[in-house]
C-alpha cells in the first residue's frame, strides 16, 4: 500500500468517468460520469492527506468540498434536466444542443 497505488486507483476512476462523460448521450448518464471522476478525486485527496500531509486537514477539507460539490451538482443537474425535459421532452445532450438554434 503506497501513495502511488492509491493515486493510480484515483486515476483509473477518473479515466473511466471521463470516458463515460464523453460518450454518453444522456444528460443523466453524463452526470454519472462526472460523479465517477469526482470519486477518483476523493481517493487521491485521501491518499495525499494520509501519505503526505496528515498533520494538516487540507486533504480532508478537499474531500468535504468534493462531496458537497457532488450533491450540488446532482441537485442542479436534475433541476436542469427536468426543465429541459419539460420544455422540449428530451434528455439527450445531442438534442439539447439543438436548443441553441
Amino acid at each position, binding site marked *: 500500500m503506497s501513495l502511488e497505488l492509491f493515486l493510480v486507483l484515483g486515476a483509473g476512476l477518473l479515466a473511466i468517468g471521463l470516458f463515460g462523460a464523453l460518450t454518453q448521450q444522456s444528460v443523466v448518464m453524463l452526470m454519472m460520469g462526472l460523479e465517477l471522476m469526482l470519486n477518483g478525486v476523493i481517493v487521491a485527496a485521501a491518499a495525499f492527506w494520509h501519505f503526505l500531509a496528515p498533520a494538516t486537514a487540507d486533504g480532508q477539507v478537499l474531500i468535504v468540498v468534493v462531496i458537497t460539490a457532488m450533491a450540488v451538482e446532482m441537485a442542479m443537474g436534475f433541476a436542469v434536466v*427536468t426543465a429541459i*425535459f*419539460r420544455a422540449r*421532452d428530451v434528455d439527450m445532450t445531442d438534442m439539447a444542443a439543438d436548443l441553441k438554434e
Partner: protein
Amino acid sequence: MGVTGALLRFAAGRPHILLLEVPGGTAERFAVEAELRHRCWPAAASPAEADILVLTGHIGAWLMPLVGRVWRQMPKPRVFVHVDSPSDVPQLLDEGRRRLATGGEASEVLDGEEQNSGESEEEHHDDEHGSDADRCGGNHDDENDENTDGGGHGNGHGAESEQSGGDDHGAEDGHDGGHDHGGGHDHGDGMEMPGGLGMADRGPDRDGLQLDQLHVPLGPLLPDWPVGLVVHTTLQGDVVQQARVDVLHEDGADGDFWNEPWRRAAAGQEVSRGERARRCVAAYLDGLARLLRVAGWLDPAVGAGRLRDEVLAGARADQVTTRLRRLVRQLRRARTLRWLTDGLGVLPFDRAEAAGIRGPALNASRSGGDVTARWQAWLAEIERTLPEVDDPAVLPAREGQAQGLSEEDPASMPALAVLPELLEGAELAAVRLIVASLHPNITTLDSRQVTGVAGD
C-alpha cells in the same frame, strides 16, 4: 424429510389466509373472518404471503382462470379452500390446515386450468405475462378478453405493471394507436419485449412532463376491495391518470346478501323492521371495517368486524350498544384518521345529487363531501339505526319493493358513475380509501345498469 415434515406441521399451526370474496359469498366471508379472529390466524395481503387461499362465493367459468392465476402466485406449500356455506367454515379450515401440514396440494382443479390455457408450471411463469400477450394480442376491442386480462392481474401482483416507472420512451411509436379507450393493454402491437411484456406508453403528467404510463387493473380478486369491482387504471408513478370502472357479473350468482330482508318482504314473507335495521347497521360496520383496514388501522377494524357479526347474529341492542358507541366515539375523536382522509375524493353536493346518490353519501357531500365526511356520515347512520334493531314490527311488503337496495345502500349504483372522476388524479393509497368510502355494493346491480359492463 423428517425435519421438513416437522417444520411443515409446526408452521401449519398459524397459517396466513388470503381471503377473497366473489359475488354471492358475503355471509361466508363473515363466517371465515370470525373464525380467523377466533383462531388468531393472520390475513395475508397478497398471494405471495398466503398459505391457504380461501374463496367465498360463486366461482363460474369466467372467474376460474383468474382464481387460477392467484393460486399459481402462491408459494408452495399451498392449499385452496372454497367455502360454500357459513356453517362449514371451522371444519374446512381445520381440513385446510391438515393438508397444509402434510405439504399442501400439488395440483387440483386450478392446476388443471393451467394446462388448459397452455401455461407451464414453471416458477418463472408465475405471473403469466407471456400467455397474456398471446391471449390478448390480436383482439383489443374484445371487452371480454380484455377484462380477463385485467382481472387476472387485478389481485395486484405481478400485474401488467411491468417495469413500472417505466419502460421506454423509445416505444412511443406504434403504440396508442389501436386502443379505443385510453387504457386497455400495454401489450405492444408489434414490438415484443423479453418475457412477452409490453412497453409503456407516455402521457403528460400533472407536472407537465411526458412520463410513462402503465395500465394496472385493480380488482376483482383483491383483499378489502368491493366485491366484483374492477377499476382499470392508467398510472403514472402511483398517480391515477385515468380510471374506467367495470363490474364483474357472472350468471348463477345468488341474490345479494345485503338486500335479503327486502327481497323476502317483497316475496310476501314476514320480515321484521329490526331485521332490516340489523342489515343496515351491519352494512355500515362492514364498510367501516374495510375502510379502516385500507387505512392501515387494524385494531378498530377488527372491532367493527366483531360488532358487525354480533349484530347479524341477533345480539340484542343493549348487548352491543355500549361497545358500538365506544367505537363510534373513538373514531369521531381520531384526529389522525381525519387528517389523513380530509380532502380526498371530494364529491360536491350538486354532482352527487345529479348522479342520483342518496343516503349518507349525499348527506356527506353537504358537509365537505370528502372521505372523512363519508365515514362520519356512516357513524351517524349507525347511531340513528341502532335503536331499531329490536323492533319486531313487520316490514310491509310494498316497502320491500319500493326501497329495496336503495334504503340499505343507496350509494352503490350511482357511486360507480362518479367513481372514475373521483379517482383521476389521486394516488393509489387515496384510490383505495375513496373506493372504500363509497362502499359500492356491486353484486346487487343488474349488469344492464352500468355502462361498460363486462363479463357474460
